[in-house]
């Protein structure tokens, strides 16, 4: 039967080909695209019912999709090796069965899995950008929560799990120079851990306490600057954490004037601020509300000249948003996620002027990750 069907199919195809060829048409052949090398204005959206969508904000075109697991909330791009690393948790029967936690290596050109490294079944199930980041030039740090907190280290050159570092009371992986990473701790400090050439811990430092978790905690989202990270409190204070041989914490400044505070303006959202170090512009998502509204979406985006600690412009949003990101380059674009399914509004970051809107970037673009 199979032979007969195959024979009939070939005969039909042959007949069609003959007809098309006779009419002077070359039959089209299907194929598979490869992805160009990502540029500075590329970003990835990740949210529910669809994550890992890659876009070029210069054109508004989707470039491809990275396979992620139901529990993946961020990835790490390694353009030097042409890879994207995806932390993934799978159950053998979908929502139950045997659990397997992996770091999956995807080839950036084909967006296909090419290798995987088994890691302890402890990957944190939190929706956060800093669950994965590179540490030095060949290690990846993965944030674990059971709820005891730790970090798993993977060597991407050897494609092997190196070990687990206990980080009691401190969370996330915020990379620093010299194979180090920073964490935020519940006692109001930050912690810096250094790795040796083999990926094992060699040093650990703790800052002085500079915030009170009960009074005005820092958001768990930190913003990268060349020699450290910026932290913003629920109340709108900005701290600079500079890490050289020691950890220096700056005196804070407030994004709120007295008038802003009287009007009830607050930072809020799920990814409520962004910083472009090349131009020194800090962006915050603002709403008017009471205490404990730190996850409330905003009605405006404010842009600050970081060095002068002054607001440069206010951007009124047509619909509320709690998610923004900015590209890392010296001609930055600001991305704002709005609506359901989410569109990404692309603005010129230095002026606030909208350049384009990219529709249907994901059912909800809960997070935007700049490349």
């Amino acid at each position, binding site marked *: 039967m199979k032979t007969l069907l195959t024979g009939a199919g070939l005969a039909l195809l042959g007949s069609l080909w003959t007809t098309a060829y006779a009419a002077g048409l070359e039959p089209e052949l299907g194929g598979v695209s490869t992805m160009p090398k990502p540029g500075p204005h590329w970003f990835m959206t990740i949210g529910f019912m669809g994550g890992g969508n890659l876009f070029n904000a210069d054109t508004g075109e989707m470039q491809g999709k990275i396979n992620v697991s139901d529990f993946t909330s961020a990835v790490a791009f390694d353009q030097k090796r042409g890879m994207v690393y995806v932390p993934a948790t799978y159950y053998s029967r979908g929502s139950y069965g045997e659990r397997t936690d992996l770091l999956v290596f995807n080839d950036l050109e084909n967006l296909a899995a090419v290798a995987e490294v088994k890691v302890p079944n402890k990957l944190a199930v939190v*929706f956060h950008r800093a669950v994965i980041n590179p540490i030095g030039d060949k290690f990846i740090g993965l944030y674990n929560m059971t709820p005891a907190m730790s970090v798993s280290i993977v060597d991407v050159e050897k494609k092997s799990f190196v070990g687990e570092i206990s980080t009691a009371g401190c969370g996330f992986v915020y990379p620093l120079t010299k194979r180090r990473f920073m964490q935020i701790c519940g006692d109001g400090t930050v912690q810096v851990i250094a790795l040796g050439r083999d990926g094992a811990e060699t040093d650990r430092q703790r800052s002085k306490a500079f915030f009170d978790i009960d009074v005005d905690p820092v958001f768990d989202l930190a913003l990268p600057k060349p020699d450290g990270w910026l932290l913003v409190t629920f109340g709108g204070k900005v701290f600079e954490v500079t890490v050289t041989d020691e950890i220096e914490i700056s005196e804070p400044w407030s994004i709120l004037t007295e008038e802003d505070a009287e009007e009830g303006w607050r930072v809020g959202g799920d990814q409520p601020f962004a910083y472009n170090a090349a131009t020194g512009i800090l962006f915050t998502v603002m709403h008017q509300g009471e205490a404990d509204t730190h996850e409330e979406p905003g009605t405006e985006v404010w842009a600050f000249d970081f060095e002068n600690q002054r607001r440069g412009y206010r951007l009124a949003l047509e619909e509320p948003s709690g998610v923004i990101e900015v590209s890392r380059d010296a001609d930055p674009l600001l991305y704002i996620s709005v609506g359901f399914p989410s569109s990404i509004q692309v603005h010129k970051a230095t002026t606030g002027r909208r350049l384009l809107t990219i529709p249907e970037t994901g059912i909800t673009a809960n997070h935007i990750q700049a490349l």
Partner: protein
Amino acid sequence: MGMLESLQFGRRLDAQVARTTRRLAKRVSRRGFIGRLGTVLVGAGALPLLPVTREAAAATGISEMGDPQSCDYWRYCALGGNLCSCCGGSHTQCPPGAELSPVTWVGTCRNPADGKHYLISYNDCCGKEPCGRCFCHRTEGDKPIYYPSKSNNILWCFGTESHSYHCTVALVQGETSAAG
């Protein structure tokens, strides 16, 4: 980690005075994650069932009023997730086939019926697909993820067979002072 150890994280219980109403935040971490795991009805939020006032059958014997299928129910002051009371369970019982997580985050909520504050544990029910009904997101006293015991942006399916999130219950653990 067991319940008591988890509660130790919260030894510095904060001084938030719980409010009984709050506009629901939109598109937040835990909500997004839960939704991503299969819920389509984002925006349905707290299903506006007919306003019901009923005496909950509280095993604790405390006097309480309100609708456990409403986000405004007093116990839910720091709850982010789907209400098990809308999913075949109740505000204290997981729906059939789900597994109660023994490790939780906590909130301090004011019971309007007696004016007292209670320590509430929010236990996720796990091992099934997300229920997807009666999504609530209240953040009174909520802390960042690096302070887990008071963060509702974590899927708290720890100590269970599966980390898949289904819904959340709210259990009274004891009376506490508003000042913590």
